[in-house]
């Protein structure tokens, strides 16, 4: 490396006294970028089908952003064209909700395929996911026979008690 540490320290010290959230400096092949506060939007682990389930309930979408989290209106993360949402289940679809608060896992182990994906046919006893609470793994079953029509949460998410996890188009 070829860094002038003293110079860098001087810059950092200067920045420390200053109020900013994002600082970028580019000069020739030198680039410095510093951020403060906020979160980084780098990709979470899960890979995903681009075609699948979209959009949010508009009301929930414009809910007050939690102050603990930087001010991105939740709506912003909800695409405009939608199919099935938990707030807006079509007739004949039922929601499978979390029986307890915990961490959502779509697969038995990291790296393994998910228990189910949209389009899979399940029966009432089929395991759809795991909710982990302090190292205790709880499997969640479908509760009704039908076809998985939506997945509402991501691997590793905190899910709350009674939070909708899946939609199932029940077998008529």
């Amino acid at each position, binding site marked *: 490396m070829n860094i002038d540490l003293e110079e860098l320290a001087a810059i950092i010290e200067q920045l420390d006294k200053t109020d900013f959230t994002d600082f970028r400096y580019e000069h020739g092949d030198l680039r410095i970028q510093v951020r403060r506060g906020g979160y980084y939007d780098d990709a979470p682990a899960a890979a995903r089908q681009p075609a699948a389930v979209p959009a949010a309930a508009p009301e929930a979408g414009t809910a007050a952003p*939690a102050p*603990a*989290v930087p001010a991105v209106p939740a709506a912003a993360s909800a695409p405009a064209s939608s199919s099935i949402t938990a707030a807006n289940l079509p007739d004949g679809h039922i929601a499978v909700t979390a029986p307890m*608060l915990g961490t959502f896992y779509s697969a038995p182990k990291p790296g393994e395929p998910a228990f189910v994906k949209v389009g899979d046919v399940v029966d009432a006893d089929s395991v759809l996911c795991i909710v982990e609470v*302090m190292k205790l793994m709880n499997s969640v079953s479908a509760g009704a026979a039908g076809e998985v029509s939506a997945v509402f949460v991501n691997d590793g998410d*905190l899910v709350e*008690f009674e939070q909708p996890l899946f939609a199932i188009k029940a077998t008529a």
Partner: protein
Amino acid sequence: MTERQTERVFVANRGEIALRIIEACDRLGYDTVLGVSAADRSTLGARRAGRTVVLGGPRPGESYLNMNAVLQAAISTGCTAIHPGYGFLSENPEFARQCAENGIVFVGPSPEALEALGDKLTARRLAESLGVPVSAGGTAGTAAEVRELAGRIGYPVLVKAAHGGGGRGMKLVTGPEELQDAWQLASAEAESAFGNGTVFLERFVTDAKHVEVQVLGDRHGNRVHLGERECSVQYRYQKVVEEAPCAALPEATRTLLHTSALKIADALDYVGLGTVEFLYDVTRDELAFLEVNPRLQVEHPVTEAVTGVDLVREQLLAALGHPMTLRQADIRLTGHAIECRITAQDPDNSLAPSPGTVARWRPPAAGGARLDSHIYEGYRFPPFYDALMGKQIVWAPDRTAAVERMDSVLEQFEIGGVTTSLPLLRRILAHQDYRSNVVTTHWLNDYLNDYLGNDVEQEVH
């Protein structure tokens, strides 16, 4: 800009105390996450917390007492500390231990301190070893020793196994004729549980005032007391009216009370907020140590009113490792404060809980008054939790003025839709016994019988 670590506090409680904790966190610039049961999704606490997560079903075991759910929620939301409030998980050593194991600050004493304090006898022995007054009592191994000891103490006495914790197997003996049976039972229990049949006898004080000293310590060896409270107006061990200070204490006794409480706190190297409880026998002018409550108490606002110290803030700062800036000399007690617990309980029906919808809730915003409450008009009182609706606190320069003030505030307080303890509180405040400050811990039980018989003769107005 000053460098500051952002704390995020998980509030593991509900009702008025959840609001109180959120308020204290807000003012310190700490983030808050509130864990609620499915029945509490739309409470004021859920509105005010930085974030709210649903822990589980409405029953406390599914939510507020569900250690795993609380811990998981706190960890997943990035909390650095958990405030347990009072009740629920606040005195659970196992929970405190699990917090520590997961790198989360439990806002309360260490698991070891919680365990030690959970055992009444251990605490009593500690008090004795420090020269702190305890009620007459002792241990005995044989029937003859027990008879002799009971006679010396004077009836009624409490008999229990000398080892092991809690109130388990405690028996009240009102005369010599009951002693043999009680001793045999306690001794057998002690033998089977601890391999040692020694029993413990203690005087059962029937006519005393309940007094308690607020103490506060930090992780740097600083410790102060914040004066005492009196909580003699109780019904089945539930406090109903509390005040600070205890106006009935002679000054020398008050000094003994405060130094005794501090001795105990010092011996425990106590960190955080704690309350050292005593009984005060007015006739004999004698104090007797009862136990230490290692948590924020419902009645903390009366101490705040006479000291000016924000106890919840100090508790949070101490738990998070900040050195106290308060010194004993800074703490001056001014005036007199009273708290009345307004509950959804029916005084005409043995204070049975009366849940329902609060159609009208019009507290007076009186001078010198403070109301800690989570109630709003339209609030539906769930049947799963305690009946506390709010704590009305008043302050005035002396006890007489404070009583008058509370009287007038209660008079103006309008509640509709649910049956509450307001009428009872008004009558307590108007009662000659309360006004002349001769109430002891069994007074309200007796009075409630009179009350149900509509005996109003002793009231002032």
